[in-house]
């Protein structure tokens, strides 16, 4: 009886957005009198940080600092339609809607600034710090705040924009399954190193070393949040979690966190991650959906590492100590 080490790998891809499309989202943007920009949505932040990312996308497109963007979301009396937060669609779908709205708003912003500066709007650019200047001669400029004030009180114009993104619905051909499930895919590859205790059947994940291709990381630290949290969930799915431990038998269903097991803070492996970016042509600044995928590659990588360690295949999830011990017993027989 001993602790045996092994390693295994797995590589996966993941589609961005609702399968087969047909899932629109909208955004409305307007400037306040003092040059803040309000993004109005009905989208839901589940904790992945949607509100932050949407402010960044709006700021990038308008050419202003993220701090000057206010995201007002999730009231159906004010927010335009959003299909919802699922299917790794938020960043891609809502982000694209915001780019469309922000481009419209930016065009008005520059038109008003052009009138104020008595130049052609096509000759203007934003400096990213809250000013609009003449290309090549930053000395002649007007602030976004002054421009917004002028738009409201002098020109009678709304600096605003409307945006929607729709990936048109695909209908699968019933005989062959020909269809357009998604337009862009994220990718991942994980190498898992495990230690299997042949006496107890317990599996410890020692390290997860992964490469993730995410299109474009719009906020690198928040991509890291998804990667580490997702990899943890992958370990959890691989080794611990189920509401029906003797599926398809319905007995022994857990009802609390004492029975429904997940890895605790003391069960963490060493995480090492590399991020690769191949921008998606239809993604907002190239971004793909990455939140769901991060849980997927660790699961089979761990299963394969267990085989590498002790030579038994557990082809059913979760890979509990009981299953490992039964397999080792069968192997010895």
């Amino acid at each position, binding site marked *: 009886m001993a602790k045996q080490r092994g390693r295994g790998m797995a590589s996966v891809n993941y589609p961005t957005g609702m399968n087969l499309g047909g899932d629109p989202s909208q955004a409305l943007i307007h400037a306040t009198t003092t040059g803040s920009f309000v993004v109005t949505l009905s989208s839901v*932040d589940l904790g992945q940080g949607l509100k932050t990312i949407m402010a960044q996308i709006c700021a990038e497109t308008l050419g202003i600092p993220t701090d000057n963007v206010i995201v007002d979301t999730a009231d159906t009396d004010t927010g335009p339609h959003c299909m919802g937060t699922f299917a790794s669609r938020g960043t891609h779908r809502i982000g694209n809607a915001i780019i469309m709205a922000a481009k419209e708003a930016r065009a008005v912003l520059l038109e008003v600034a052009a009138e104020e500066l008595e130049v052609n709007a096509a000759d203007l650019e934003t400096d990213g710090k809250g000013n609009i200047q003449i290309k090549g001669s930053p000395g002649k400029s007007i602030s976004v705040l002054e421009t917004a004030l002028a738009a409201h009180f002098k020109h009678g114009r709304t600096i605003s924009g409307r945006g929607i993104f729709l990936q048109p619905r695909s209908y699968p051909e019933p005989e062959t399954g020909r269809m357009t499930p998604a337009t862009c895919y994220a990718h991942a590859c994980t190498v898992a190193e495990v230690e299997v205790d042949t006496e107890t059947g317990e599996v410890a994940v020692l390290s997860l070393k992964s490469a993730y291709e995410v299109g474009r990381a719009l906020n690198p630290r928040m991509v890291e949040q998804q990667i580490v949290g997702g990899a943890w969930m992958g370990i959890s799915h691989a080794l611990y979690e189920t509401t029906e431990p003797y599926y398809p038998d319905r007995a022994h269903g857990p009802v609390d966190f004492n029975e429904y097991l997940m890895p605790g803070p003391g069960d963490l492996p060493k995480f090492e991650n590399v991020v690769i970016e191949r921008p998606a042509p239809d993604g907002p600044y190239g971004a793909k959906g990455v939140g769901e995928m991060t849980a997927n590659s660790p699961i089979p990588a761990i299963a394969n590492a267990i085989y590498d360690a002790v030579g038994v295949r557990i082809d059913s999830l979760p890979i509990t100590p009981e299953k490992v011990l039964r397999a080792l017993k069968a192997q010895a027989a």
Partner: protein
Amino acid sequence: MLEYSSKYFAEERNQSLHEVGVERPRSDVQGHVTGRTQFYADRNFPGLLHLKMVRSPHHHARIKSIDVSKALKVPGVVRVLTAADIPSNIYTILCLIQVEPNDEPVLAFDKVRYKGEQIVAVLADSQRAAREGAARVKVVYEPLPAVFDVEEALKPGAPLVNEYHGRNWFTYEGHHCRRVRHGDVEKAFAAADHVIEEKYQSSPIEHAPTETTGCIVVPDSNDRFTCYSNTQALYFTLDNSALILKSPFHKLRLVGGTVGGGFGGKVDVIVEPIAFLAAMLARRPVKYEFSREEEMQVSSPRAAERIYIKDGVMNDGRIIARKVRLYVDAGAYSRHSPYGTTKAAAHMPGPYTIPNVWVDSHCVYTNRTPSSAMRGFGVTIGDFALEVQMDKLARLIGMDPMEFRILNAYRDGDLKAHGKETTGAALVECIQAAAQLADWPIGERYKAMSSQRKGA
């Protein structure tokens, strides 16, 4: 530890970004660390009623009678709701994207089809009174034979789970499953050096958000109703609720957007319609939140899947055929499973270019808690099966598993099984980067490969 690699695809990246591609603090984090972030349940309303559900103790049973008289005598109980109170009791969430038929009652009346199914809602001044009232509702059942195994459920003579379908599977345009047909797998199997078939199985998985599913509905002035909810999709919830209540859409308002973890579990529309109705009838604010036990055993889990994969592989490492039979255990009702089953079919045969692919993906009804969306819906369990299978294939022919995957990985321009051309592929590069990170030796030939067909 995380690093960004600039080694791959540098020429495709816009290098002049200012507000994206850079670290910015989370706009919500100060609220999180001070406890000022307002979740739906952080709102207090005077006169709030608590809703507690009477649930089926049986996996499958006919309801003979429902007697609520003793519940109504419990001090603090205000009223009860049964199926007769629901204007349009039979619904299915995805009717909004034309998935048919309506197959699930908001409140069960003639039958229960899974353990935990909701039957009677009890409204009371306090949680304690609501629980006590629910305990006093008397439902008489006639237990029926139940089916729990997806392949058993498909056999002739299996107990019929859901009469609205008339059979234990979802029908896709006349087919008993979602099909993908690409090339000729049987011909390829005959030509393959090796053919192996393996079976994979998963069990249901709970989303386990730290905040359980719930909502509070408040009657506003002017005969409108506001629902403070932790749904993942406000309009999905609003539209389904209005259809169930036969209410003009404009009378309902959803407020949310701040959620204590979703992971797909809060895409279902379970608590809001009944809470809307309760608030309309009682003319008081109503809160319906899942207990932790309800969240774990009654709310939709990630579906259990059973997947058979049969592969034909050549000694040189090429996979020439893949045949997949996939069974999604939808439980008693459709919810999002017909969608997820199609997504699972579309995902096959994984990120590899295989010239002959055959997929039958079944959405099967059984007498268990309906499953629904969860992080990686339609893909996570498929990836487990595919990638364990890939490991077995590599070992079978004596190839390194990374090199085996790089060889078979899809490249730009490759035709996928569902008929689309591959674009933006990056699997080869991910494998190369992971190999380098993990000091996993791969041959120079494989290090030089690319997802891009340069010069082609």
